[in-house]
């Protein structure tokens, strides 16, 4: 998988690269300028020396002669300890100095120093030559004064400047990269602030993002907000649809059922009565199915954004038992509650837990014979065990796994009406709360035991 690209890293690398290029340019420019300046200085001193020597040329009895000035050479020794060579030629004959000193760049114009760089006596030397005319005869003599100096002082200066410039450049680079790191971080701060604001939200918080957004992020935030608004209205519509649908389907079915019962009473022919009974059963099944499907949809919907409200399980159980009491009474079934004294606090979605409990109790009543007991128990240890035990037909040897799948009904149902979603709903509620549904046999005889095991969050 490709590593996600980081804007911060990219920004940092680009700024660092720019800083590196600038630092390098700085070092090269400083070095170039400095070494040029140093070379220029050496050339100037060499030219001054050659000029001083040329100025002390004279003619004596028709011969060119020279009174080498002390300062002409000593001035070359003032700024460094480089080796010095000189040569004076008259009409290409060496008058004095180092006869083997090469003069490759011979000056052609009077008093205009010509420079060149050569290797002489094993060292690189800078040479300056000056051309003079000395009027010792009718034609005059062409005198070339050459002064040369090695360049180790120059190299030392350039080296020193390079080291300093490199140090400064490196420092600049480090400073610039540190600053670009800070800049990248600060430029992206609004983004991380917004990320924080969004991630801190609860699962069902779909309010628009109102944090300060930089101009660049405004379109994104706008799009996000409008998306959330649409999502919110779509979710609201779904919720409305579920409650509405339950109501809209059940009410007409109830009306049809009442009508069918009235009709049933009026009819006399047994085959007609049977037909109406079949119809009533079908209506019951449809009504049951519609209710369970919508309950299931509601549970699924709520599981997506589970609410963790503090609630009292004991109160919840009492309420559910009370609601089912009339149905139980019809069959003379006693609903026994073995609950701890006082409230049983728990954090979860009350509506979902009620749906789960309702379905389990409904099953217990449905699949129990008349005149039996149903026990609701709460045991608290590391998790919360809520079990409902009946004395009915029990699960027999049915596969527990398959009973919790959607629309699965057991072989033991007989003519009991049902859609096969009850345990599915209870199972999903348990899972949404991080727990599970456990099916077992009544340990004290005939019957089934269904438990919700819910961990504390």
């Amino acid at each position, binding site marked *: 998988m490709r590593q996600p690209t980081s804007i911060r890293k990219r920004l940092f690398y680009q700024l660092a690269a720019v800083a590196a290029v600038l630092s390098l340019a700085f070092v090269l420019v400083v070095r170039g300028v400095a070494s040029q300046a140093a070379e220029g200085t050496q050339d100037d001193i060499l030219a001054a020396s050659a000029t001083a020597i040329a100025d002390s040329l004279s003619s004596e009895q028709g011969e060119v*002669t*020279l009174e080498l000035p002390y300062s002409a050479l*000593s001035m*070359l020794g003032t700024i460094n*300890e480089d*080796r010095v060579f000189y040569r004076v030629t008259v009409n290409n004959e060496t008058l004095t100095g180092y006869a083997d000193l090469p003069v490759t760049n011979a000056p052609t114009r009077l008093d205009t120093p010509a420079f060149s760089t050569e290797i002489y006596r094993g060292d690189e030397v800078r040479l300056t030559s000056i051309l003079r005319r000395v009027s010792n005869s009718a034609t005059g003599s062409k005198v070339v004064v050459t002064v040369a100096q090695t360049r180790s002082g120059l190299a030392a200066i350039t080296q020193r400047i390079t080291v300093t410039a490199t140090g400064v450049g490196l420092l600049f680079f480090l400073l610039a990269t540190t600053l670009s790191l800070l800049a990248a971080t600060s430029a992206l701060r609004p983004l991380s602030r917004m990320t924080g604001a969004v991630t801190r939200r609860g699962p069902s918080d779909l309010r628009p993002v109102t944090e300060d957004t930089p101009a660049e992020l405004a379109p994104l935030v706008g799009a996000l907000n409008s998306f959330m608004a649409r999502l919110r209205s779509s979710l609201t519509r779904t919720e409305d649809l579920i409650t509405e649908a339950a109501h809209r389907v059940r009410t007409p079915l109830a009306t049809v059922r009442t009508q069918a019962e009235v009709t049933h009473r009026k009819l006399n022919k047994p085959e007609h009565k049977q037909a109406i009974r079949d119809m009533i059963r079908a209506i019951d099944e449809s009504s049951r199915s519609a209710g369970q499907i919508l309950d299931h949809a509601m549970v699924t919907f709520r599981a997506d954004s589970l609410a963790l409200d503090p609630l009292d399980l004991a109160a919840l159980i009492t309420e559910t038992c009370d609601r089912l009491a009339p149905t139980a009474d019809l069959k003379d079934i006693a609903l026994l509650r073995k609950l701890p004294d006082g409230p049983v606090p728990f954090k979860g979605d009350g509506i979902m837990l009620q749906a789960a409990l309702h379905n389990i109790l409904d099953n217990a009543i449905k699949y129990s014979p008349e005149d039996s007991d149903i026990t609701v128990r709460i045991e608290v240890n590391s998790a919360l065990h809520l079990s409902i035990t009946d004395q009915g037909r029990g699960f027999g040897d049915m596969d527990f796994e398959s009973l919790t799948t959607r629309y699965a009904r057991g072989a033991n149902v007989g003519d009991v009406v049902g859609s096969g979603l009850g345990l599915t709903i209870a199972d999903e509620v348990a899972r949404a709360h991080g727990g599970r549904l456990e099916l077992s046999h009544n340990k004290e005889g005939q019957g089934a035991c269904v438990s919700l095991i819910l961990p504390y969050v």
Partner: protein
Amino acid sequence: MRVAYFALRLITALSMWAGAASGFEIEDRQIYNAASESSVLRIISTADRAVFEPIIFAFQQANPGISVDYTITGTTDLMKAIYEENAAFDLAISSAMDLQTKLANDGFARSYLPTNAASLPDWAIWRDQLFAFTQEPAVMVVSDTYFSQGAAPQTRDALIALLRANPEKFRGRIGTYDVRRSGFGYLMATQDSRTSETFWRLMEVMGRLDAQLYCCSGEMIADVASGKLALAYNVLGSYAASELATTDGFQIVELTDFVNVMLRTVLIPSNATNVDDAQAMVDFLTALRTRPDLVAASGLPPVDATALQDNPALRPIRFGPGLLVFLDQLKESKFLRSWENSIVQETP
């Protein structure tokens, strides 16, 4: 120097060199064997054995196992040996700063940074090739016969005035170096001429008084001490000082207008083979100041910047390409001509 004294030795030395074609003249050669020899350090030097022997012994004591092969020659011959004949030496010690400078400038010296370089004044090292280890002023020595204690002139101008006022008294009784024969004399004369115009007036006056010309400080000092000379100008101060310890009859005068200070230098020739020992000797010599016993025994005043600060008249001759100027053929011949015109007035 001291040619007669070493005449006998010269013969032995030459016989040892027999077969080796060497154009430079050797005055003396002595080999100081180490008890258990591990290497030989070959030194060519202008310093007499009497001066240098204590240093060699001390060096051998500090570095046992090094035998020292010590060859004595004149300044020009030393230059010739290394510059022209590529003679094999590990160390060259000379009082001729200009010639030593030329050797270093022209690429005949090897670079080295002495271990005690930091404690040496800047002017004592040039190019990391030339190392000064003594500072020796050029002084005037005067005879007790002619000058009572402290009565000698203290400046060149005073000296000129004195000589002009008493030509009969000083005729034939003034000595100085024959700069044509002595490298040290030439160096001092050229530096004098550079420093002040009084030099030429002094030469003029000395020439008129039939100045006696010498090759060496030792003979001049001897003649002053014996009263044969009234004064000798530009004598090597270190010789005069060590001579004064054993000889009476003369005084040393450091003129107060200026005193040129010559630096005795050592360099490692570029063709040296025993570089390690040569470097050890350079370290030893440049640390001479830390060995008062050797200073006393050799009579060589060590490089000492504070001594120069105390007396502003002392002017150490600066290393640098300027020293090459008076080695220029044209310049030298012109200088010698002027000098001869001044001092050798009645050429026979």
